[in-house]
């Protein structure tokens, strides 16, 4: 009997368990999945928690419910991966593997910036990339009457790169609805050269910040948070003051990756960008946020990767060459506030453009353009996530590789 071990029961790991359980021959293979946490969170919902659009129960369920029968679930902490000996050390034992799938994700590391994870953390400095952070921020926003809100990205890459921008847009709507928008100054601070950095997106969407009266600070590489004086400071001593700092801290892969010596500077695992095989160990595969591939760290990416990875695991078992198939396909709804949203569909090569999606010429969704229907699409996605995506059921009309049909590629 051989062992396939999946580390992490988040979006990627759960999808892989569901894909593989019906495809690996049961008489030869046993599938294990390991995760120390009991709860599975719908992470895209963290964006909506601070604004009282979603409540706690809409973004969390018991993780075990989504692990199929026939897969052994270990709710245990992973101590270390011993890749030389094909072993995973768990808190109370050892699991040996023939194939390992690393799906340990990424998480925030506020301790990477001086003064961020300080006594002002969750008092005047908040994140919304964790369940606890999003809830603490919700409580803060309920009481927030006036002042400077700074929405800030520490450094790239981050999970869901558009989320901070969506946060700024939703904050504009939120304060507007409360009738205090004129008392709140919103500033968006990015280490990049703009809120939009791709040619076509900046042309089409550049109006959004101005329309919503959101101030923009670019090329801001944070050195420290002066939490006593409520200022963020960059390397050339430029200062931006805040009353409420909503930051996206440095994102890093799990510490188990660092302990196991399998990661880069940020604990992401060097991975072949088209096959999803580890660059160092041929029986290790990596999926989702845990990889270092230059695709967005997003659930849709994990979904498209899971289809290619399933095929490649079967090819690997049968000693056949892997498919160099994954193209960086990403598909994201972007909330722009006031019940509208954008939709983008892109890959490693193709930047987001306008067009119709998923059916060329028909839609009904519009790419790179604000619409109410896109907003409903984003809200409907929560159902899709729990009922289709996690179970590995293909999303109708949306293929693993990006389609150029329906896209206005000749700008």
């Amino acid at each position, binding site marked *: 009997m051989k062992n396939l071990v999946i580390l992490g029961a988040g979006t990627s790991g759960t999808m892989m368990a569901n894909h593989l359980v019906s495809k690996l021959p049961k008489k030869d293979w046993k599938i294990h999945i390991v995760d120390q946490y009991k709860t599975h969170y719908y992470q895209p919902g963290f964006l909506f928690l601070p604004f009282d659009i979603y409540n706690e129960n809409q973004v969390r369920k018991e993780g075990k419910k989504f692990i199929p029968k026939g897969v052994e679930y270990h709710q245990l902490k992973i101590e270390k991966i011993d890749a030389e000996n094909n072993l995973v050390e768990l808190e109370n034992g050892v699991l040996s593997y023939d194939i390992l799938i690393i799906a340990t994700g990424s998480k925030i590391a506020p301790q990477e910036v001086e003064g961020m994870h300080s006594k002002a953390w969750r008092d005047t400095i908040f994140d919304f990339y964790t369940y606890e952070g999003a809830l603490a921020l919700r409580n803060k926003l309920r009481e927030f009457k006036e002042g400077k809100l700074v929405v800030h990205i520490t*450094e790239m890459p981050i999970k869901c790169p558009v989320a901070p921008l969506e946060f700024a847009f939703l904050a504009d709507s939120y304060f507007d609805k409360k009738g205090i928008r004129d008392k709140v100054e919103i500033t968006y601070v990015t280490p990049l*050269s703009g809120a939009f*950095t*791709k*040619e076509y997106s900046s042309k089409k969407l550049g109006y959004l910040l101005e329309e919503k009266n959101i101030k923009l600070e670019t090329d801001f590489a944070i050195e420290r948070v002066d939490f006593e004086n409520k200022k963020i400071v960059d390397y050339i001593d430029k200062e931006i003051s805040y009353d409420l700092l909503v930051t996206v801290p440095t994102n890093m892969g799990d510490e188990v990756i660092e302990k196991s010596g399998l990661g880069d500077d940020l604990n992401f695992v060097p991975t072949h960008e088209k096959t999803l095989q580890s660059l160092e160990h041929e029986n290790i595969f990596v999926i989702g946020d845990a990889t270092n591939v*230059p695709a967005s760290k997003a659930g849709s990416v994990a979904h498209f990767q899971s289809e290619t990875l399933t095929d490649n695991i079967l090819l690997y078992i049968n000693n056949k060459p892997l498919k160099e198939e994954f193209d960086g396909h990403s598909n994201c709804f972007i909330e722009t506030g006031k019940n509208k949203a954008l939709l*983008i569909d892109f890959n490693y090569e193709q930047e987001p453009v306008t067009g119709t999606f998923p059916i060329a010429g028909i839609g009904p969704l519009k790419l790179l353009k604000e619409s109410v229907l896109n907003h409903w699409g984003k809200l409907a996605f929560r159902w899709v996530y729990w009922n289709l995506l996690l179970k590995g059921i293909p999303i109708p009309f949306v293929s693993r590789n990006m389609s150029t049909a329906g896209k206005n590629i000749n700008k």
Partner: protein
Amino acid sequence: MIKTIKQIAINVNEEGYLTDFSQWTKEIGEEIAKENNIEMTDKHWQVISWIQEQVTAKKPLSIRGIKKSGVIDIKEFYALFPGGPLKVSTKIAGVPKPKSCI
């Protein structure tokens, strides 16, 4: 778009970044630097080589990477390439600037 530097035609995007790294030469880098009011020194070129190596190895560029590069510290990096050091240095290096997904 086509841009001509010292009688050599190069392909650039609307912001002036080279779209084909194979067209890059030190002379072209030097001219782009001048357009950004930068007079290149040995230290500048060391940073440019490091950036080109990173991009060729498909490693993402970041301020953190600069900190760990051993070539230069961050304050020096800002001093050498004023006004957004990553976006200016990548332009001179003939590689794309760091981007997000939109």
